[in-house]
């Protein structure tokens, strides 16, 4: 446990390192038995030596996203599953970051409750993951100790083997061949299918969603976030539009207005229409969505 946490921290040890150093850091992560987003999250949380609190989560969220970005800068090829799991966690963390902005006490909106539930679910999953990591350690120790004992498993002495009743044999060579064909057929021969089942939603491109938002806002009138996502069919589209807005805000083509906490968030176009193009968006989220689409 302790070991893997230390390993998960390794990417943080080389902030702003040169290209070769950064590549090395990424490479170390792969070698360090890092087994997925939960591992990394646990590592980040323990690094901040805090309980899993909202405050820690905000920091952790930033670092998690930084980590993803660094991996992408390195041009790491992600496995499809890994990438989609990261995307799910990243989206959850962004939700949680948003939930942190909620005032304590009066939580009435169903969406807010959903956010809090998402947070609790993430905590629960992380704690559970941690527990299994610990018992995996115990199992490993036991297996190692037990490996030091060898069972007596010798072949039956000849005179006992001779006592065994004659086998009943009903297979013709042809039937036997069919049996062999069945036994020799590769199992799980289609790894291409593996792991796609859990992708419930079709891939959504942040870039595409940015274009939709851009088109709507460039017509002039400011729109509420609620209005911008009114036609979103799935949560994934909502997440993608939210991410797109963050990107567009960073590029200073949109501005946000909000009267107070929990008040309607109004989005206004502020950029130079001629200059902006969705292809200017950083590749941060795009690579994974494209990967999803092309696979």
């Amino acid at each position, binding site marked *: 446990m302790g070991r893997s946490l230390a390993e998960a921290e390794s990417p943080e040890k080389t902030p702003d390192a040169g290209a070769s150093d950064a590549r090395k850091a990424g490479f170390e992560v792969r070698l360090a038995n890092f087994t997925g987003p939960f591992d990394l999250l646990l590592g980040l949380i323990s690094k901040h030596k805090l309980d899993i609190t909202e405050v820690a989560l905000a920091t952790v969220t930033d670092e998690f996203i930084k980590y993803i970005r660094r991996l992408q800068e390195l041009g790491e090829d992600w496995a499809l599953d890994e990438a989609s799991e990261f995307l799910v966690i990243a989206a959850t963390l962004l939700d949680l970051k948003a939930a942190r902005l909620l005032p304590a006490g009066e939580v009435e909106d169903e969406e807010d409750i959903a956010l809090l539930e998402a947070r609790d679910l993430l905590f*629960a999953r992380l704690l559970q993951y941690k527990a299994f*990591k610990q018992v995996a350690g115990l199992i490993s120790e036991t*297996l190692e100790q037990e*490996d030091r004992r060898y069972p*007596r498993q010798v072949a*039956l002495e000849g005179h006992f083997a001779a006592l065994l009743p004659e086998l009943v044999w009903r297979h013709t060579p042809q039937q036997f061949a069919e049996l062999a064909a069945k036994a020799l057929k590769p199992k799980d021969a289609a790894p291409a299918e593996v792991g796609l089942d859990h992708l419930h939603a079709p891939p959504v491109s942040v870039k595409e969603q940015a274009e939709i938002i851009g088109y709507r806002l460039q017509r002039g009138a400011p729109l509420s976030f609620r209005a911008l996502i009114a036609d979103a069919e799935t949560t994934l589209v909502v997440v993608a539009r939210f991410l797109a807005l963050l990107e567009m805000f960073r590029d200073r083509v949109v501005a946000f207005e909000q009267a107070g906490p929990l008040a309607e968030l109004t989005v206004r176009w502020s950029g130079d229409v001629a200059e902006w193009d969705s292809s200017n968006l950083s590749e941060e989220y795009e690579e994974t969505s494209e990967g999803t689409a092309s696979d």
Partner: protein
Amino acid sequence: MAEAGLAELETLPGGARAALEAVLMVIDEPATSEELAAGLNVTVAVVEDLLQDLQREYSGYTVKAPDVDAVGFAVASSAPRGFELRNVAGGWRIYSRSDFADIVGRFVLEGQTTRLTQAALETLAVIAYRQPVSRARVSAIRGVNVDSVVRTLTQRGLIEDSGNDPESGAVLYRTTSYFLERMGIGSVAELPQLSPHLPGLEGIDEYYDASRM
């Protein structure tokens, strides 16, 4: 009839105890006390007494007489033997004593298992504590895809297919008796409790069952 069996055994050199030992010499997987009793034609209670006697004797705990040192060979027979009798995976079987693992390992190369990766261990842990369980659920708990690891664990004989989930139709996995053997335990109930590692999460099972993925 079982009593007649015992009387018959006692006429042989070494008696019922030696007869049981002779049978233990030819088994190649753990044998239950019922199977052993049937084979020896004695009651299960008799076999269990004998098994415990042998187990203690092999471990060198039989010395009770105060004048052991007076009798040269008695000292030798009270020392632990090179092997032990263990009750694992619901049955009894003879193993070499772990103190001699390095030496025995030089003779028994095959069958020695390579170590499991961290990913395989964690997946095995989830399956052991949540069985019967689908790959999707293990995957959700571990946060990564576990398909290839599940394949490896199946090949190693540590887990097996235990039918399909009646609702989703997904294949469910459980640990095998070989897993119990490798762990040196009688049943999965003997695995260390998970809850001490899961502080304040008593309700998580229900939560997972409700939001099952």
